[in-house]
């Protein structure tokens, strides 16, 4: 259970980075880090409560978080190119 608190503390640090991050890429970085932490949190939770099916959730989270992230990245890339 101790690990969970530390993970939460990390999440807080990442949120600060996301908010103050000087560039948009820092924000994206923070977002992906948060999603990684969330997945680890869920794995830890599933481990503590000893329920295997909760891991499906971690899987789906990894996939969907990835999709939205790459979409944002492509989008910004495209926009900054288009403005040239």
């Amino acid at each position, binding site marked *: 259970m101790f690990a969970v608190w530390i993970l939460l503390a990390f999440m807080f640090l990442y949120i600060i980075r996301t908010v103050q991050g000087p560039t948009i890429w820092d924000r994206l970085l923070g977002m992906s880090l948060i999603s990684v932490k*969330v997945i680890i949190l869920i794995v830890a939770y599933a481990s503590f409560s000893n329920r295997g099916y909760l891991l499906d959730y971690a899987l789906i989270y990894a996939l969907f978080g990835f999709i939205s992230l790459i979409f944002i990245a492509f989008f910004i890339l495209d926009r900054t190119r288009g403005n040239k």
Partner: protein
Amino acid sequence: MIYVLLVFWIISGILAIQARKLIRIIVYLAIFSTISAVCFFVFGAPDVSMAEVAVSSFSTVFLIVCFEKYFTLVTEVTKDPPHKEKLSKRARKFILPACFTAAIALLFVYFLPDGTVNTYLRDLYLYRFRLDVGGENAATSIYLGYRVYDTLFEALMLLISVVSVAHMSWRAETDETDAHFAGVTKSDTVDVYTIRILCPAMLIFGVYLILNGHISPGGGFQGGVAIASFFICRYLIYDVYDVRFGKIMIFEKMTFATLIILAVLFVFLGVYIQLPQLRIPYLLAMNMLIAMKVAFGFIIIFYRYIAFERR
């Protein structure tokens, strides 16, 4: 632990609402949805949490595609006034609404009703759901069994939204493939290769979610979104444009009609009482139909957005 998460949740919500730049809005909103999904998870609702994750990923995609169009369209924007304003003006703009909402919130809290929870229906459901509907997931058996009437309208909502998106958006009659939106070059970069590997994994995972919907978290909606995301990835890689809207839309309607007829036959007419051995197949079939419907719906919406305003 939950309280810390909830504080994060509120913080990210405030960030999402106050953010000025559109990309920041998207990022903050994604974080907001993520954290709320974790909160739902801790509340013991993995189904809702999964739906929220799926929805958040898709609304991120929608928002991005829409904002991209929005940039090119909006020309008239009132500039934000300079920062040094008179206090009275700022008060009118910000402090007054803030006080107003705060006052309402205080009134709300003052009148908070008794917190004791009446667990009558909960106990009834937990006691009966295996007998009546079958399956191991109580939420799914309510969703597809007891309250299937609601579920029909929810599927109808998606159908209507697809119809209205198709009606409200317009596109050129002949649209050829163009690689404008997806900034991916068609060269064999690492990311394209890897996504190509991941795509089938997504499909398999979606099918797994659908087939296991009645015994583990997940189900038709979540699996359908996973399958739809497979098509989005396909778009990202190949930039293909070969979606036949007319056929898919009619096919989607037919799926919905089948959904209704199945629900009517099985639940409304009470077949489930006489044929208990059909309960699990029914749940599976419903999950599959919902997944098909959702996947078609999201594919249409996505491609409509991409095609929207293309001339």
